[in-house]
């Protein structure tokens, strides 16, 4: 591999990692606090992509407005789902929640079909980000550079929010002991609703930011949900920087793995997860859950 190729691959791996991180971080947040395995997260991602399509292409709004619309749209959808339905399920079996999110996937897939039909769509790059930057020995696409900036920004913002604010302390406490928090007078249901909304909005942003790079088609939710779970799991459940690390591992393994061993590309993410879980059963930065 020449230096040019290596640089390019490393860069692409990073860009992929950042795009995946943005989506997976929301899933991680929801799982970490609510302990809900949200199968609908991929569908939220798809809705994020479709919403930015409608807002920027059909209505002609600027790209940034589209991203915000995707985030807002998913926040509203998620809040409605949480307040109307999901909030009644926290005390039930985890598996019932899983069945619930699967039902949401089915309903939203048909909703998408009714709203957007089955055509495939594409979203243009935001102005000024559609080209590439020439470093002399290598060309780097601007949009991917942009993702490489946005990803860490989101990570830092989440870290500040969760680690440095009162609200964040409550959220972290909620992951530990819900009853205790409730006894302390914290409105736990509101914390849950806020976390679910925020995590889902991140899926929307992830979808919106992925939209210029990929074709928008029904079914685009299917693989993304597995990949997000892989990232969250290999990073360590509920661990923000774990997910960041997990996304980086995912990005580089998929990028370099696909170049070097194209025959394995279909199962690369799963091989990565296998390797991590066998060596570190609780993920890269995860801790074993005490007892039971």
């Amino acid at each position, binding site marked *: 591999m020449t230096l040019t190729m290596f640089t390019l691959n490393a860069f692409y791996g990073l860009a992929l990692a950042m795009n995946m991180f943005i989506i997976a971080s929301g899933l991680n947040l929801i799982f970490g606090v609510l302990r809900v395995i949200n199968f609908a997260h991929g569908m939220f991602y798809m809705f994020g992509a479709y919403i930015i399509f409608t807002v920027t292409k059909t209505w002609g709004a600027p790209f940034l407005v589209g991203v915000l619309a995707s985030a807002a749209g998913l926040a509203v959808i998620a809040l409605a789902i949480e307040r109307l339905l999901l909030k009644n399920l926290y005390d039930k079996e985890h598996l019932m929640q899983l069945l619930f999110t699967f039902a949401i996937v089915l309903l939203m897939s048909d909703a998408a079909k009714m709203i957007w039909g089955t055509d495939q769509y594409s979203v243009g790059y935001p102005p000024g980000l559609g080209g590439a930057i020439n470093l002399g020995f290598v060309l780097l*696409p601007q949009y991917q550079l942009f993702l490489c900036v946005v990803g860490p920004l989101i990570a830092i913002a989440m870290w500040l929010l969760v680690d440095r604010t009162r609200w964040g302390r409550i959220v972290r406490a909620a992951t530990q002991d819900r009853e205790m928090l409730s006894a302390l007078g914290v409105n736990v249901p509101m914390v849950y609703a806020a976390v679910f909304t925020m995590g889902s909005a991140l899926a929307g942003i992830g979808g919106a930011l992925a939209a*210029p790079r*990929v074709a928008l088609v*029904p079914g685009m939710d299917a*693989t993304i949900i597995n990949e997000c779970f892989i990232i969250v799991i290999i990073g360590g459940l509920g661990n923000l920087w774990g997910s960041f690390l997990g996304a980086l591992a995912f990005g580089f393994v998929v990028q370099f793995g696909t170049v070097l061993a*194209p025959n394995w590309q279909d199962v690369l993410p799963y091989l990565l997860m296998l390797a991590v879980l066998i060596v570190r059963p609780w993920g890269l930065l995860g801790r074993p859950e005490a007892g039971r």
Partner: protein
Amino acid sequence: MKISAIIVAAGALGAGTAFAQQPVKIGGMYPLTGGGAVYGVPAMAGHQLAIEELNAKGGILGRKIESIERDDKLNPSAASSTMKELITKDKVDIVLGGLSSAVGLAMSEVSKQEKVVYIATIPKTIQMTTDKLHKYVFRTASNTDFEGDTMSLLAGRYKLSKLCNLQLDYAYGNDLEAGIVKTLGKNAPNAKIVLTLKPKLGATDFNPFIPQVMAAGCDGVLSGLWGPHFVSWVKQAKPLGFFDKIKWISGGEIASHEIAGELKGDFPDNVISNTYELWYHAQDPSHKEFQARLAKKLNTQETPQWALLGYVGVMYAAAAMEKAKSTEADKVSAALEGLTIKTPVGPLTIDPKSHQANMGQFWGPMVKKPDRAYRMMDPVEYIQPK
């Protein structure tokens, strides 16, 4: 002897008139949900259009047509069950449709067991009409050999020398590659494949492949990347100036308006590809007529190409039943062999040996037009296999 013959004839006549009340049942199966719906939904629209037209003219053999439509879910086992259901519960006389190779082969397997004719209208895998050919399976779509042949022909015509072969890593991609390799020496003796890459089916990230193609110094790419794969590739490769130097010859119908109309200005230069049908291509009156009716049904002038495939399948079924004067599978199968019908894209004939129709495709370069926001094929050439 004579008397018994009369009795038999009378019986047959009686049965015939009783039968005349019964509609002809045509089963149609396409993916209508999930990832395959992009193609399945328009194909089903064409399927329905054909049945509406036939019914307006009195149906088949004077009997009304009853259309029974199902989602094949892009899943071979589910499709197999559904097709059995159509045969055993709904008692269909013939089944049409399918999209993916695996679904096509699964449906072909059911057709073989149940002795019901199946016309594959979209699946292209060559196996269906070679190794796994049987009496009841027919194909009115193109196939990977035809497509590969035309692609290598185009490589020769554009005097390409260093080629990169870019196929999706699954049945269609592998078969198309075989079709190209088989004919390249004959069609483009000066061309050489210097690099073969196979991204996975459903890939959305082509960054591991794009730099490799650019670094290989190819002057042309022979690609089987269809639909969303092509769109994603374009979105990721174009910022690097990928299409400035490299000529992209593609199967997989990426020259269709569904893609060009969506990508608009983002559709790259230097693309030569195919499509089954072109709404803006005035070929002959029958095509214009078809296009007008389809536009009315779908409420858009810019109709998708896939409708034609569903439409032609039904027309073939109808013609075969008329020719056989029966809906019995054995007779319909016999009638389909060598049958020629008129279609919106010209006359088609099913080869009696391979059960394959000589379905051609429109081929040509995609070019900017001053008065259009999207690219169109110009000049268009309808290439039909010999």
